[in-house]
């Protein structure tokens, strides 16, 4: 979709970003030592740190990805909210305090405080880098998704902007400023999400949502008819003899159920669907055609806002409210959900076909879905398996939920925050504050996502845009504020990740593994160079992964983090026979196996390489279920094989 920038939105947005940057420059002047740069001198108050946890954690993925997934597929997106929060339980109850008791600057320090092993430093540094970069991708993709509707720039400009600003922040400041930026942003995000939710409930639900004074385009759904017959459809469509209707059942179109209609020289596609009672429906669709020369047509016309041009219609509405009402008026928390459960909602599916002449048609078609289905799991294509009989699909789901559960405690930029408070009690209190604010926000995601789903303002081509577009459908000012908060969200998360990576490079790789002697000044300088390099990598990957739902990408980052780091952390804390060789090998095994699994999965085949999903080597896409236990087994086996001769050298 094409977005019209609004002057006021840009103004509010610019002001918030300027304040954030100004704050970090000012605070940056206060932190000159290496301790100050990496761990904020260990002197951050627990409450500030707790909200900053929320600021770190409620990343672009949480805000944009979850809202988008709920807006497009209903309850499935909320499963991520639940999984992300559950991960904090592992962090608080199992990892937080022992870790704080051991470490100084980085995750590698904690692992290594027992063994002084260069191997561990190397493994931990590489896994920190790998996880951070993997986690940076969705943040950068989210940045692009925000900038596009706000300023009207293309995706890559947004990614470049965020990358540049973040590199500036990190290079000038360090951990103190990111902590306060995260604190500010965490608070703002929770406050404005609350406001947005209240406005959604106030607005209530309507079968004809109005945006910018215009009602939503009502897509035609013809039927039901008893038989799927071309003549029948001709009469339903009220065609004349000049109009041409063909059934597309040859070559790449076979079994997809589309009709092609040529009327007044314009081509359109219609989707045939069938309900349980073997009645047939025919629905109007929207499509994008990319010719072999690279020209783009939307619904048969060039994309644009001028004459003879067109654009995708915004979508997402309720088709039937209970009692055949057209609108409900203001609703409460439970009546909002129960009304949706009794309604019928138009969700959208998509299908892509590569024609023999080299052109590609992507068709978006409406799918009337009962509210009961929307509010229960299994609508997302990636989750649909739990409703089927295929065991591997069920394992895929289990695997994802396991990775979300185990991933949080293994994320380097979350772990690093345990070192920014004074003591164990403060680490504990910050985590409780963090869990409270994050949990509260996640409850709101369900309302924001469903509000977006029924707002009539969704971009059918991009689920990441749901939350900003929802805000825009309520008011431009709200859109500006929400976008600015989401943008600073990205800034904050990205700077946290870049600091974690640069810490890994300087502290673990250069200083501890390569044994390069450096004074504080040199350390900070190298860290800044490393930040720039990691930032540039993140920018490039953010541009490449534009079309992935950011939430799905985060799922992968969690899998890699959990597979590489969790076995080492847990066993080190709870199993006295753990050896340094065991830890080193387990980190490498977990990291390589989970990365390898992802690269060989059906999702990568289809989404990254453009190959057939059926050819993928691994049986399901999410690695966690296999690679997390693998890390534990490898650690135990290697540790048992490398037990030191004398008993006392371990403890």
């Amino acid at each position: 979709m094409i977005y019209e920038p609004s002057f006021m939105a840009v103004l509010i947005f610019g002001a918030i970003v300027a304040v954030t940057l100004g704050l970090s420059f000012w605070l940056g002047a206060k932190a000159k030592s290496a301790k100050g740069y990496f761990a904020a001198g260990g002197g951050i108050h627990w409450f500030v740190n707790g909200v900053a946890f929320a600021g770190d954690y409620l990343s672009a993925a949480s805000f944009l990805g979850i809202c988008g997934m709920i807006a497009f597929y209903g309850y499935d997106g909320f499963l991520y909210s639940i999984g992300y929060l559950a991960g904090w339980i592992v962090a608080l109850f199992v990892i937080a305090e022992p870790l704080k008791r051991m470490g100084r600057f980085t995750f590698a320090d904690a692992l290594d405080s027992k063994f002084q092993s260069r191997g561990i430093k190397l493994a931990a540094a590489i896994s920190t880098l790998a996880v951070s970069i993997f986690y940076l991708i969705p943040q950068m993709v989210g940045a692009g998704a925000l900038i596009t509707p706000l300023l009207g720039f293309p995706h890559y400009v947004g990614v470049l902007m965020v990358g540049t600003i973040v590199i500036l922040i990190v290079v000038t400041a360090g951990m103190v400023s990111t902590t306060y930026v995260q604190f500010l942003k965490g608070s703002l995000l929770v406050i404005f999400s609350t406001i947005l939710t209240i406005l959604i409930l106030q607005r209530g639900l309507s079968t004809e949502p109005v945006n910018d004074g215009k009602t939503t385009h009502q897509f035609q759904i013809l039927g039901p008819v008893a038989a799927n017959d071309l003549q029948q459809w001709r009469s339903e469509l009220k065609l004349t003899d000049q109009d041409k209707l063909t059934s597309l059942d040859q070559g790449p179109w076979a079994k997809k159920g589309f009709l092609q209609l040529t009327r007044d020289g314009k081509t359109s596609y219609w989707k045939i669907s069938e309900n349980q009672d073997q009645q047939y429906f025919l629905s109007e669709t929207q499509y994008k055609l990319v010719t072999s020369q690279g020209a783009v047509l939307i619904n048969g016309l060039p994309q644009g806002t001028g004459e003879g041009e067109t654009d995708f219609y915004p979508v997402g509405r309720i088709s039937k409210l209970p009692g055949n009402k057209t609108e409900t008026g203001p609703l409460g928390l439970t009546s909002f959900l129960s009304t949706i459960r009794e309604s019928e909602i138009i969700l959208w599916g998509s299908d892509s076909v590569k024609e023999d002449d080299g052109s590609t048609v992507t068709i978006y078609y409406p799918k009337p879905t009962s509210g009961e289905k929307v509010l229960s799991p299994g609508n997302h294509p990636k989750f649909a398996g739990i409703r089927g009989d295929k065991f591997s699909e069920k394992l895929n789901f289990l695997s994802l939920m396991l990775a979300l559960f185990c991933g949080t405690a293994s994320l380097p930029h979350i772990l690093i925050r345990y070192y920014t408070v004074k003591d164990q009690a403060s680490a504990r209190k910050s985590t409780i504050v963090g869990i409270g604010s994050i949990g509260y926000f996640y409850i709101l995601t369900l309302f924001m996502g469903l509000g977006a789903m029924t707002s009539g303002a969704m971009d059918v081509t991009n689920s990441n845009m749901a939350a900003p577009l929802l805000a825009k459908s309520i008011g431009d000012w709200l859109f500006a504020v929400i976008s600015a908060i989401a943008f600073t969200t990205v800034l904050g998360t990205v700077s946290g990740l870049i600091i974690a990576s640069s810490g890994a490079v300087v502290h673990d790789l250069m200083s501890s593994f390569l044994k390069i002697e450096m004074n504080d000044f040199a350390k900070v300088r190298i860290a800044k160079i490393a930040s720039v390099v990691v930032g540039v990598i993140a920018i490039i990957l953010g541009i490449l992964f534009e079309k992935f739902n950011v939430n799905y990408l985060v799922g992968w980052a969690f899998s890699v983090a959990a597979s590489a780091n969790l076995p080492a952390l847990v066993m080190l804390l709870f199993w006295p026979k753990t050896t340094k060789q065991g830890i080193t090998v387990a980190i490498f095994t977990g990291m390589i196996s989970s990365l390898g699994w992802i690269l060989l999965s059906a999702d990568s085949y289809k989404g990254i390489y453009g190959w057939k999903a059926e050819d993928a080597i691994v049986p399901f896409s999410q690695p966690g279920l296999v690679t997390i236990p693998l890390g534990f087994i490898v650690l135990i086996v290697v540790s048992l094989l490398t037990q030191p001769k004398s008993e006392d050298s371990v403890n």
Partner: protein
Amino acid sequence: MAGFDHGPNEPDEQESLETISRNTRLGLILFLVYLVLYGGFVFLNTFSPAQMEVVVFAGLNLAIVYGFTLIIAAFLLAMIYGWMCRNEITSPTAKNGEAKP
């Protein structure tokens, strides 16, 4: 604000071994409680998704009610943990960390 002055970042206090093991045990028990709740949710979703559509309360289905329960339970368990964890600190420096924001 307390956080602006940069204190030392090595842990200041040493908890007694007894406190450490008591807190660790408490953490593990609460973790197991949550593991059972979360595991139940995940397995129900995986192997009996139709159950999640059953309306249990105020027009809300099991999926919504169980989901909200998990989020609220996480916070409640965290509060219980914070409450019950003992803090016997032998070093006097720790009181600096208690200032209100």
